[in-house]
Structures are given as structure tokens and as C-alpha cells.
């Protein structure tokens, strides 16, 4: 394969960079508008049509804010932490194709920065680096709230990272490759029923659900935004940050939403694939970009709705969900997927057997839902004051 001229990677890099930066700006605006609607407010509506330029103006405003470096911080690490977050966020998008083949000035190329042979691993690795940004910010601040927030959210992130990684393993089993273009290729064609897309979200539904829950927690978004539980931790790991450095954390957090949406679309929903409606070749290249943006926007919208609709989860609930539900489910599902792939190579199962297996699986899931929720609810109920042992001891002492 001959390598393209140098301007091609330069062009794709800038286009992808701009695409994700623009999506992040639009996400911030959309979130403020949608959450405002959910709370019967108007939201930003003054700058530009429907307030769409609000993010830009806020960004400019941030330049003129004082950037305080408190005296007790570990200065090099304190400065490095927000940069690590933003740069890792941008690098994670490198392997995600935002569109199909494009022909420009006689060169045909895909709109992706680099189609690495370890693409999916690259995404997971850069996701892990994001944890450093959070933890280093908390640690370098040398202040109680950031330290607590940083430790909390790094524990949360590493927990859900395992669940996400194991969920992606079943995608690898199906696709047989780590290269993102191979994974998208494997999702082309028909699904179980002709005419249905062959997206991995359908045969790998449990892995898909684990991944979706995991990505919300990994991005530190409501209802899993424990890192910045304002009521108890002030601002979490970024309490001591202000000005543009705080802006960098915000950018990294919102970018994670966009990146996670792009990743889930790529791994489970066929990436930029979609019908082109027989358009002529001259315009057909727009369609993959359109489909990719549409699918990504749906997930971004899902993130926003979650924020508007759900209260914050308690910390032990969050860790229980991650360790006791998502990780076992993802592990078992990886094994089940592997067994099914091997059975399929042997000639597959009879339709009746499939129905029986599906029925058993359904009974197990419903059973777990019924059995699993009751003891936990009991422990969550507030202890009545007269049954609280500490309180009664105190009463004895005073009386």
C-alpha cells in the first residue's frame, strides 16, 4: 500500500479535531438548552440564534478570568493535570472514523486520523490515561476536598473501566480484530433478520448495555457524577482550579461525553454505515458523516436526558453496580458469546433450542432482578432514630 501525500493526514487530523471540538461546543449548548427545558426554564437564548454561540462566548470569557495557583499545590503536577485530561481526550478520537471514503484532489481516503491495528485497545488505553488527570489534580492540590474527590472518582473510573473492557471483549470475539475498520466492516450486512442492520448492539445486547452504563460512569456524568458531588465535596478534584485550567477540565469532561458516544456508535452501532438512498457519488460521501453524526447525537442526547432526569447515585450503590453486577455480567457474557460463536461454526443450534435457551436466560434475568433488589433496599432504608444504637447509647449517658 503506497502512502498518501503528506497533506492527507494533515487534512484528516484537522477535520477530525475540528469535528470533535465543534461537537463538544454544541453539546454544552444543547445540554444547557435541554436541561433548561426539563426544568421549565429557557436556558441561554441571547447569543446568536437560539443562543447557539453561548459556548464560544463562555470560552472567550474564560480567557479573561484570573487563573489562581494556590500556595500549597505541587505546581508542576497541578499544571500538568488538566493538560493530560484534554490531550488524552483528543488522542482517544484518533482511531474513530467520522465518515466514509472521501475523494479530494484525486486522493481517496477515509475520514480517520489513523486506522491503527490496535485501534480498540488505543481507545481503552487513552481512557485509562484520563484517570491520571483526575487523580493527579486531586493529589497535587494538597487540599482535603480535591484529594477526596480525586480518590473517589479514580476508584469509580477504574472500576467501570474493567466492566467496559470486558464488554468490548465480546466485540473482539465477533469481529476477530482490534482494527476499527475491521470492526465496522464486521457490522456491515444484514442482521438476524434480512433488512435489519448487523450492528453488534443486537446480538451482543448485554455487552452493549454494560458498555452504555459503564461509559456514563467513566465519563463521570450524572447519575454517576460522584467526582463533583457539590453537596459533599464542593467541586471534587477540581475544587482548587480556576480560570482556564478549570475550563480545561470542563472541556475534557464534556469531550468525554462526545468521545464515549462516538466509541459506542463505532463499536456497537456500525459507525458511519447507513443507507445512501442511491445518491450520486458526488454527494454520497456526505451520508456516512450524516449517519455517524446522527447516531452520535442520539447518544449525546441520551447523556443529557440522564442528567436532567436522574438524581445522583450513592457511592456504595455505584460501586455495587460496577463490581457485583456489570463485571460478572460482562465476564459471563464474554464466555457465552465465545461458546455461541464456536457452536455456530459447528453448524449452529436448532431454532427450538435457541428459543429454550432464550427462555432460560429470560427467567434467570428476571429472577436476578427480583432477588437481587430486595435485601439492598432494606439496607438503604434510613435507620429510625430510636433503633440507632449510637443514639440510644448517647441517650443513656445523658439521662
Amino acid at each position, binding site marked *: 500500500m503506497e502512502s498518501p501525500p503528506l497533506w492527507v493526514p494533515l487534512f484528516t487530523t484537522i477535520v477530525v*479535531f475540528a469535528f470533535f471540538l465543534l461537537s463538544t461546543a454544541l453539546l454544552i449548548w444543547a445540554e444547557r438548552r435541554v436541561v433548561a427545558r426539563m426544568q421549565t426554564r429557557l436556558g441561554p437564548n441571547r447569543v446568536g440564534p437560539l443562543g447557539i454561540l453561548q459556548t464560544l462566548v463562555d470560552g472567550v470569557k474564560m480567557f479573561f478570568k484570573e487563573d489562581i495557583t494556590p500556595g500549597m499545590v505541587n505546581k508542576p503536577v497541578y499544571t500538568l493535570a488538566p493538560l493530560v485530561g484534554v490531550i488524552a481526550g483528543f488522542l482517544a478520537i484518533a482511531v474513530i472514523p467520522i465518515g466514509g471514503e472521501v475523494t479530494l484532489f484525486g486522493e481517496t481516503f477515509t475520514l480517520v486520523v489513523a486506522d491503527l491495528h490496535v485501534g480498540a485497545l488505543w481507545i481503552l488505553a487513552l481512557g485509562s490515561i484520563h484517570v491520571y488527570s483526575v487523580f493527579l489534580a486531586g493529589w497535587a492540590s494538597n487540599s*482535603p476536598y480535591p484529594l477526596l474527590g480525586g480518590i473517589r472518582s479514580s476508584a469509580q473510573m477504574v472500576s467501570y473501566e474493567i466492566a467496559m473492557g470486558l464488554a468490548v*471483549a465480546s466485540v473482539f*470475539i465477533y469481529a476477530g480484530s482490534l482494527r476499527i475498520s475491521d470492526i465496522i466492516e464486521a457490522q456491515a450486512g444484514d442482521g438476524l433478520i434480512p433488512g435489519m442492520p448487523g450492528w453488534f448492539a443486537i446480538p451482543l445486547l448485554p455487552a452493549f448495555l454494560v458498555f452504555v452504563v459503564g461509559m456514563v460512569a467513566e465519563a463521570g456524568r450524572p447519575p454517576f457524577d460522584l467526582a463533583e458531588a457539590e453537596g459533599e465535596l464542593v467541586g471534587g478534584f477540581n475544587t482548587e482550579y480556576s480560570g482556564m485550567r478549570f*475550563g480545561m477540565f470542563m472541556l475534557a469532561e464534556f469531550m468525554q461525553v462526545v468521545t464515549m458516544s462516538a466509541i459506542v456508535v463505532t463499536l456497537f452501532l456500525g459507525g458511519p454505515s447507513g443507507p445512501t438512498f442511491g445518491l450520486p457519488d458526488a454527494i454520497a460521501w456526505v451520508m456516512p458523516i450524516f449517519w455517524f453524526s446522527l447516531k452520535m447525537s442520539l447518544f449525546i442526547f441520551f447523556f443529557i436526558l440522564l442528567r436532567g432526569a436522574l438524581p445522583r447515585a450513592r457511592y456504595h450503590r455505584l460501586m455495587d453496580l460496577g463490581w457485583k453486577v456489570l463485571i460478572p455480567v460482562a465476564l459471563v457474557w464474554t464466555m457465552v458469546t465465545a461458546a455461541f460463536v464456536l457452536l455456530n461454526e459447528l453448524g449452529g443450534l436448532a431454532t427450538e433450542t435457541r428459543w429454550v435457551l432464550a427462555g432460560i436466560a429470560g427467567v434467570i434475568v428476571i429472577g436476578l432482578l427480583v432477588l437481587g433488589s430486595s435485601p439492598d433496599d432494606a439496607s438503604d432504608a434510613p435507620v429510625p432514630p430510636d433503633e440507632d444504637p449510637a443514639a440510644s447509647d448517647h441517650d443513656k449517658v445523658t439521662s
Partner: protein
Amino acid sequence: MLAEFLPILLLFVLATAFAGGSLLVSSLVGPRMPNPTKLSAYECGNEPLAEVQSARFPVKFYMVAMLFLIFDIEAVFIFPWAVVFRELGWFGLGQMALFIAILGVAFIYEIGRGGLEWD
């Protein structure tokens, strides 16, 4: 093969320039008016009490970190297996099932001993 990573280097330079440039511009045009209150640790307006560098935090977080290491190694073990799994066939599946079963026993023990209980 390393040429594949060249565009990523470009992206890295672009991202670093963007983030570093923003911080630089902000430090040039932003005001700078430090005072002792601004420069002290934020504790909701109280006098800062805690000496954080020697502060202790719950041992649970260490447990999570160690469990994470174990399970992350497991994930790292599963990824290459998942990619070449079709060639390995039933033998590979059996091996992986055995590995996960051994880990699963430890995991169930951990949960049973209350290692993942948060109060």
C-alpha cells in the same frame, strides 16, 4: 508499521498546541491579583485545617485499586484471546473458562468476606 502512528503525532501536536495555547493566552490576558485568602486551600471559608500530604483515606480505596489490577490483568489476558479465539477453538474456550473460574472463586470469596462493602 510505525508510520501508522505519524498522524497521531500530528493530532498530539495539535491538541497540545490547543490546550497549551489556551493556558498561555489566558495567563497573558487574565488578571493577577493574589491575596492570602485566594492562595489558601478551599475549605468553605474556614481556616484550612488539614495537613493533606500525610492525611489518611479509607483502606477501601486500596482494595479497589488492588482488585482493579487483578481484573485489568484479566482483561488484558482476554483481549488477545478474543482476537485469535477462532483459531484456538474449544480448547481455548476451555482454558479461558478455567482461568475465569479460578478468578471467579476468588471474586466470590472477596464479596463474601465483605471486601466490596461500602458503608
